């Protein structure tokens, strides 16, 4: 029996088992807190799938992804709460608007590399943070937007925590599947080539400028989708959620998970998102311990990120491959 458990089969089976468990959860429990926490994980996983494409595979850093999540959230929240637009239309609008934002940011950024791209995207996130506060008629300013309705399609309202959890994770699984397919085919190879050597990619006929814009727009659009779902899941959004700190945390998730991998960043994302809510999964944890973890969350991610870069540049993905017994070489690492 054991000889069938090759890394390859494990690699295929694990995601399927994980999906199965995820969708079984609502049958096993009706713990609202647990659903809320797991919904957060699902939303972050969606953003991370897009950021892994852009940063982990194409090698283009973005410190502005929180702003794209914000664009999606405010678009969806404003359209549904203030304008009565159907939910599905609002979600699409949020996704598209964030994608267009990514496209517009990518065009002037094409010439920028490394530090400059990081600073430009960081500056973009800060500008959006100012706008989220100052565009009061749309965003509600510092008080945020309240009363955003739950997801609904026609007369069917998804208004229970379990329903919402299933919705978010359904979208997350689809996004992960599509992303994994992109990575394995022509556009994904071009992205990895761009990361490996831009000269080599150009000499192979890859239009690297166009590719960067496309990946940026796609990645921003995915972030916007997560934002739109976030708005309708939580019902309330405020500017501080979409701050630079969140962008940095997202980057930390990809780094800790391992560049050039999808499973690694998703695992890192789940771990880091669950960390402050560990009591949802592990009953018996004391309130004091949870408070302590929440207090030190930023230090933990910062420290772990530095430690990973210093001692385990391949991140969780390389660790997983080593445990799986396959060669850890050729497996990512931030370049």
């Amino acid at each position, binding site marked *: 029996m054991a000889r069938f458990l090759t890394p390859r089969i494990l690699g295929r089976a694990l995601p399927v088992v994980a999906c199965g468990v995820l969708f079984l959860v609502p049958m096993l429990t009706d713990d609202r807190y647990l659903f809320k926490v797991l919904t957060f994980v699902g939303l972050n996983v969606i953003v991370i799938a897009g950021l892994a494409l852009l940063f982990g595979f194409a090698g283009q850093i973005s410190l502005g992804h929180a702003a794209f999540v914000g664009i999606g959230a405010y678009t969806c929240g404003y359209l549904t709460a203030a304008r009565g637009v159907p939910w599905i239309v609002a979600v699409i609008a949020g996704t598209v608007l964030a994608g267009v934002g990514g496209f517009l940011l990518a065009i002037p950024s094409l010439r920028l590399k*490394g530090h400059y791209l990081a600073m430009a995207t960081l*500056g973009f996130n800060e500008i959006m943070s100012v706008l989220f506060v100052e565009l009061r008629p749309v965003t509600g300013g510092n008080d945020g937007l309240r009363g955003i309705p739950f997801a609904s399609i026609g007369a069917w309202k998804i208004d229970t925590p379990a329903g919402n959890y299933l919705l978010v994770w359904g979208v997350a699984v689809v996004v992960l599947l599509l992303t994994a397919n992109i990575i394995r085919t022509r556009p994904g190879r071009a992205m990895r080539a761009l990361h490996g050597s831009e000269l080599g990619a150009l000499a192979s006929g890859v239009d690297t400028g166009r590719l960067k814009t496309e990946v940026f727009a796609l990645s921003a659009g995915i972030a916007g989708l997560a934002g739109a779902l976030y708005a309708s899941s939580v019902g309330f959004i405020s500017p501080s959620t979409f701050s630079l700190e969140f962008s940095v945390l997202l980057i930390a998730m990809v780094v800790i998970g391992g560049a050039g991998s999808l499973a690694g960043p998703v695992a890192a994302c789940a771990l880091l998102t669950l960390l402050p809510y560990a009591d949802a999964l592990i009953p018996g944890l004391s309130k004091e311990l949870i408070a302590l973890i929440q207090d030190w969350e930023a230090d933990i991610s910062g420290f772990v990120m530095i430690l990973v870069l210093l001692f385990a540049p391949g991140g969780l993905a390389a660790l997983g491959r080593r445990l799986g017994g396959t060669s850890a070489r050729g497996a990512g690492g931030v370049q």
Partner: protein
Amino acid sequence: MNSAELLQFVASGLQNGAVYALVALGFTLVYASTGIINFAQGEFFMLGGMLAVAGVRAGLPLPFAALASVVLTASIGLLFERVALRPRRDSGPTVLIIITIGGSMVMKSLARHAFGPNELSLPPFSPGVPIVFAGASIDRQVLWIWGLTIVAVVALTFLYSKTKLGRAMRACSLSHDAARLMGIDTARVVMISFGLAAALGALGGVAVAPLTQTAFDVGSRAGLKGFAAAILGGLGNPIAAVVGGLVLGLLESLSVAFISSTYKDAISLVVLLAVLFLRPQGLLGKSRREKV
């Protein structure tokens, strides 16, 4: 608007501008000797103010507290370079950027644990009523800011042009390999650049704390504005950093005077993006093409 009011705005612009210039100098020093942008530079500004407050609270006389804070922050800068950056110094820019980002997360968070989440204030260096000059009133602390900035710039210019260390730093900014061939210990130069950059940031933080108060989270804004100033002037050139800082400070304060204060913080961001996208070499920089 009368001339006294205008002068008031100019003075306030030059006050902020001098602080931006100090932070920008830190960016420029590190960039010149390593080619990397230190995303933790703003946290040195924060540490400067916070450590000085802590010193005063611990009973140190203000001048000692200020000095100790600058020295301590400089040591933190040295240590950060030695422990977190040097082991990966041959990696690509992305790795180094992320390490400095991680460093800034940790410094900020540790500062919150050590000093609490609230705004703290530092007593003014020389208490007294503001000085009235041609109808504009200028706080005494502003004179300290200008004075300290001038001292820092003069000292830095002297260091750069007249000392052995300065020559080594300039050699490193041209080429590390060539510098090594000349017998320069490049690793030491890089570490010292980080220490100096941290000291400059801290000096800015200490000098402005009596006016604006300080808190654990003032670093990222200060870092962003300092970087905007550095790139506005032209990254890598100390004079340009000072010019960039002053110009940015004036732009901000004049925009408050003539437009509105709502978007004061956005001005530096817009300047940052405009310079990055349109003229990445800065106002004073020479155009440089990237070679294939």
